[in-house]
């Protein structure tokens, strides 16, 4: 197992290299020029050229790339063109809200989705199942930002139960932190809840038709033990896979939610950096996102071995 993990970690290096290559050149071939933005609306060609030279953007692209990769290998992601702050520091500052939002969204989604899926499969084609699946379709079809505004209107504006927007870091206290996350997590989580609930139902239905479930029933085991141990553990691999895909989608999905709820996370940082063509920041962020996805995939693959004893690495 350890050697497998080590091998997998090494295998991420080429992936990250390709990501770095792509993001670097894609950004530079994309229209827009950070020097022109810095120089201002009525800048002359000379002043723009001066800014370019100062930022090192006038040098050949390959040279710029080599310099950037050289820095990366030393753990340095460069400096923001606009704020002059180190990219690593910018990202570190914005990491907490995004990680908190991703995890709480995932928590909301999984905690709702798995029981819904299990009950729907158990009561397949009955009323509960149909209601649950109708709810899932609705949840999946509803755009996050629409749901976000509906939730804000009722829970924050009308009933004033929760803050309208903003983010309270955990060091300001656990309850304000949780309060600030509830609405965004629900708004963002419903889509994933719908996805995970449907997969849970489908996977459970398949498992419930297996011979070993008949065996479990022939032993007179309690329904909850048959469903939650005998069936769910067998149904878990596809569910965990979808949860993993969900995490990957969430990392990009937080952008809209962070904007609607005014949360200072990586999503907002990304949007701002892209709009300003802040190359080093965008590059750093994309690398962090890619690294997170690769890591999540690895964790999912490892979890299979714990769920199914037949899977060994």
């Amino acid at each position, binding site marked *: 197992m350890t050697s497998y993990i080590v091998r997998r970690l090494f295998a991420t290096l080429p992936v990250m290299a390709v990501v770095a290559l792509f993001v670097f050149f894609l950004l530079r071939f994309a229209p827009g020029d950070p020097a022109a933005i810095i120089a201002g609306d009525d800048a002359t060609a000379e002043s723009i050229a001066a800014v370019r030279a100062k930022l090192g953007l006038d040098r050949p692209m390959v040279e710029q790339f080599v310099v950037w990769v050289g820095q990366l290998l030393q753990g340095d992601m460069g400096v923001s063109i606009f704020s002059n702050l180190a990219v690593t520091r910018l990202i570190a500052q914005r990491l907490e809200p995004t990680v908190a939002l991703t995890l709480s969204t995932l928590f909301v989604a999984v905690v709702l989705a798995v029981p819904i899926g299990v009950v729907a499969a158990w009561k*397949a*084609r009955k009323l509960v199942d149909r209601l649950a699946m109708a709810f899932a379709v609705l949840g999946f079809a509803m755009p996050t930002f629409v749901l976000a505004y509906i939730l804000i209107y009722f829970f924050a504006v009308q009933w004033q139960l929760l803050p309208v927007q903003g983010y309270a870091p955990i060091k300001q206290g656990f309850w304000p932190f949780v309060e600030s996350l509830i609405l965004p997590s629900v708004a963002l989580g419903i889509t994933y809840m719908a996805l995970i609930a449907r997969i849970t139902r489908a996977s459970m239905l398949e498992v419930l038709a*297996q*011979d*070993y479930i*008949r*065996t*479990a*029933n*022939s*032993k*007179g*085991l*309690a329904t909850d*033990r048959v469903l939650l*141990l*005998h069936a769910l*553990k*067998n149904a878990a691999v596809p569910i965990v896979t979808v949860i993993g895909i969900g995490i990957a989608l969430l990392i990009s999905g937080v952008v809209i939610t962070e904007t609607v709820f005014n949360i200072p996370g990586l999503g907002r940082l990304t949007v701002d950096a892209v709009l300003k063509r802040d190359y080093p920041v965008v590059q750093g962020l994309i690398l962090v996102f890619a690294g997170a996805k690769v890591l999540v995939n690895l964790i999912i693959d490892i979890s299979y071995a714990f*769920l*199914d*004893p*037949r899977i060994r690495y």
Partner: protein
Amino acid sequence: MAEASILEVRDLHTQFRTLDGIVRAVDGVSFHVARGETLGIVGESGCGKSVTAMSILRLIPPETGRIASGSIKFEGEELTTLSEEEMKRLRGHRISMIFQEPMTSLNPVLTVGTQIAENVVRHLNVPWSAARDRAREMLDLVRIADARRRLDEYPHQLSGGMRQRVMIAMALSCDPQVLIADEPTTALDVTIQAQILDLMIELKEKTGTAIVLITHDLGVVAETTERVVVMYAGRKVEEASVEALFAEPLHPYTRGLMRAIPRLDVEADAAGTRPRLQEIPGLVPILTKPIVGCAFAPRCGFATDRCRSEAPPLVEGGAGHTVACWEVERVRASA
């Protein structure tokens, strides 16, 4: 008879709803099982023998099937009207079951020990540690070597024969009065088949558990059972002690089954050829249409107009030997 029998099935009808209509999988079957007895239920695929077994434990999936009528009495208690919760207390405890497919009947993600012990914990109200001791004891009993280590193994680490031993250990872990074995050896190698059957008989003698052995294999029936029920198209066509049945089968269907068994004791003729195995002509009837007359009539060489219009009742044809056939005298004379 009623006093001695532990399980009594009377006029059982089990039906399934399908797109083609209602399938009468079990259509008025009656039999009883005496304490500690081994009863064989024989018939072709689709004759309703497995559905009969599932009906006794009330494991017919309610979405598609139901026990339409009839009575199943276990130790004098009517099972068809028992609540689901009461049924659960019975299953795996006083009546347990093993299945045809040892490869898929065990849960692949739970250890063997867990799967045996959970049955004990559920029904005997003992702590897990005691249940695990019991599980190890049961593995010893079904002669799985190195039981302590095997407890922590998963089904995929065991061979087919060992898995069926585990199923037997699980089924017998709470000392049931009745063990229903649905084709327990069909999926196994011939050598393993004999071992499993011997084991079941040996354990039966040790524990006094009655066995209902469901099979299509008359060889298995001859070796292991005391009494046999022959089923055809959801109905019982013949019942006899195993000796009487093999000495003189009375139903044309039973005779057909026996002629379909390969035999080594038949002399080859001068040309060195042995008589061809005789199959029963025709197919099992479609059960969605109500069957008029004897279900076997379309495939039967003795059939008359009466057979095709009127269902034959079960009649006594000798000591405890009953048969449902209008032409039983002609059949008897033909042998």
